[in-house]
């Protein structure tokens, strides 16, 4: 399959990693703006909105860096896939409720919640899942053997 060779996986890593790093930095600069975006969904308490706004962007940043560098890629692609499932679920709930809010996806570069965002996150989910399954079979760094 085209998504199962090292070149396509490298491209996937750059895309997903890049998106997560960009999105993370936009949120890290504006922690309270992001907290506001989370609380707009009206699905979480204010405390959860506040503290996850401080932590979540850093998880995104580290995962993004990990995907690109290839360090701890199994963990990061697993986490990113999990986060994307979470985001997609929240987006769908919000859309079904008919709420008109901004997604908060990229800090102040954010745009209103829409079905195209669900598709966009779905594509990212597919890419990160491909990276995850590829990483289970292959290693991104050569194993160092210490011999005497």
């Amino acid at each position, binding site marked *: 399959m085209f998504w199962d060779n090292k070149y396509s996986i490298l491209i996937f890593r750059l895309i997903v990693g890049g998106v997560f790093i960009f999105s993370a930095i936009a949120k890290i600069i*504006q*922690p*309270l*703006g992001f*907290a*506001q*975006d989370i*609380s*707009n969904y*009206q699905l979480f308490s*204010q405390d959860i909105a*506040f503290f996850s706004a*401080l*932590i*979540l*962007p*850093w*998880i995104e*940043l*580290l*995962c993004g860096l*990990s995907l690109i560098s290839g360090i*701890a890629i*199994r*963990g*990061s692609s*697993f*986490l990113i896939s999990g986060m994307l499932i979470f985001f997609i679920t929240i987006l769908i709930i919000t859309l079904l409720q008919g*709420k*008109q*809010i*901004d997604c908060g996806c990229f800090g*102040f*570069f*954010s*745009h*209103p919640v829409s079905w195209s965002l669900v598709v966009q996150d779905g594509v990212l989910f597919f890419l990160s899942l491909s990276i995850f399954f590829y990483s*289970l079979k292959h290693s991104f760094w050569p194993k160092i053997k210490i011999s005497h």
Partner: protein
Amino acid sequence: MKVFVQISRQSLIIILISSLIGLLINLSLIKKYLNQEVSSDFILLDKNLSISEITIFEAEDLFREEKALFLDARTEEKYKKGHILGAINLPLSKIKSPDDFKKIKLPEDKILITYCEGGDCRSSLYLAYYLIKAGYKNVKMLTGGWPGWLEAGLPWE
């Protein structure tokens, strides 16, 4: 099994490091939050901006005196279906940073009133925020938004 342990370990380490960095960097903000100095309107405190609101009735007066320019922060589709008479459409999807306003010249002698879908919509707040950052001084946010304007039976097109 070994792989499962490795995935859990890597994920946990990433979460732990991120939490530590996130909490440490924002220590002063957390202190403020715990002392309840952070209002529920996070964004206002964040930028130290005071974005003032304007009621439908106040806005109506300014509208009749032709002192205000209404800015519609909703999507183009919704704008086309109906908007406040004379309003300009500035959807958030098009305005992504204060720099974007350099291309769009807005009259500085008028009070700029942003509005969106009403209720909890935030796009008028974001738009007002961008306008202030872009250097406009007379910026207000319409409470009640588009539905409020319609309910009051005010002119639209």
